[in-house]
């Protein structure tokens, strides 16, 4: 039985950032770390241990899969990773969830905003 996307929610911050990095194109490990730092404007730095621990779990869960090298010329031992269909669905569901949280928060904050005398 295929797992439902909601089974994976909510995502941990590191997991969310990794899935977000892979949303655009396939990447190798160090590039994912760089992309996460760029997305968070340097506030969230992912170490290799955390990255590969998450990748290991995500691949086991079927959210991320290993991809072929970027080109024929790339003979390095780097491995590339990309989102699977399930991973893309989970990421979309998480973003929707976060959007709902943000909308709710905005509405809540609006009602709490102090009125000017």
């Amino acid at each position: 039985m295929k797992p439902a996307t909601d089974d994976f929610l909510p995502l941990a911050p590191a997991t969310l950032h990794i899935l977000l990095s892979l949303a655009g194109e396939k990447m190798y490990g160090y590039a994912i770390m760089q992309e996460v730092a760029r997305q968070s404007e340097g506030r969230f730095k992912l170490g290799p241990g955390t990255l590969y621990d998450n990748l290991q779990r995500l691949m086991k869960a079927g959210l991320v899969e290993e991809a072929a090298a970027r080109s024929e010329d790339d003979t390095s031992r780097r491995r590339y990773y990309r989102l699977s269909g399930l991973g893309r669905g989970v990421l979309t569901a998480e973003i929707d969830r976060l959007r709902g949280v943000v909308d709710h928060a905005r509405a809540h904050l609006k009602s709490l905003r102090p009125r000017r005398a």
Partner: protein
Amino acid sequence: MLRWLYIQMLWAHPAGFRHRFGDEMLEAFDLSIGFREHLRLLLDGALSLWRQWVLRPEFHAPWQPTGASGPGYQLLTFQQIEPYKPRGIALAQGGLLAILLLFGVVDAINHGGGKVRTLLIGMRRPGFGLIKLNRAALEGGPPTTTVEAVRDLDDPLRPFARSYFRVVRVLAALDADGDLTISPSEIANAPAALRKLDLNRDGKLSAEECGFLPPGDFAGPARLLARYRGDFMRENPILAALDTDRDGVISAAEIANSAAALKSLDLNNDGSLKPYELLPNPATSQAAGMMGRFDTNEAGVIALQSLPKDDPDVELIRRLLISADRNRDGLVTRGELIVELAAHPDAPRQPGKQP
């Protein structure tokens, strides 16, 4: 240094994780710049190590290469504990090292090597438990030839000599091939063999280094112990022959001269020393025992007057001692006692024992 630590940390990860992600983690470490960044990655690696061993037991299964799933693959591959093959240069270096080691072993076997050689080629001397064979019965015979074992009973002294060679360590050292005979080559090699017994490296051999063992519960005066040592060096013919100055110690000069000294024991002049030429004279040993028993004031003589009176068990000994006192001075010396015991081998040696 930090890189080395990081590599060690990677090695400490579960094999499956290490094989799958180790290279990439190290690459990320190498691409990072700055001491603080490296320190941060080291901490991250430590956390990863903890997570892998504590929180991810489901991933501890052996790693398999990508695409190694499916029944077909299982049929075509071997199960390996270590899936990575070593690099070619490592194989070449290992091969070279093995060849050099082999040459070293062969060279050590061919050109001596002391104790190393003994270890390399196994037992240097045949064990006492091994059955000696009559080789003449084997040579030229058909494959069904019955092998004859040499009977030790041919020489009634050999069973006793075996024990004696174990006790007197000098003999065990000299008899390199363990055949209970000191051959001409073993006599020639005596100085080297004796030097191996010099455990404290003082250049000479004490009674203890020659095999003397003081009684385990000995609590008497040191003077008495010294006397026992002297007796040991005097009563054993091989030690008496080596200790030419009779000082109870085989000095460096005596060790150097040992080959010549040993030849003095060769009664039949055949060049080798057999058990009957090496074993102590029973009369000498018995005399030493009696001196220890009755020379109570340690004067080196037994005073007939000092023997216990009215003791029927001692009366037989008294008769022997009176007979041994050739000069009738009332004192029996060790020499007189030995002569008497040798002349009357059936005489009583201990109180209460009839001949």
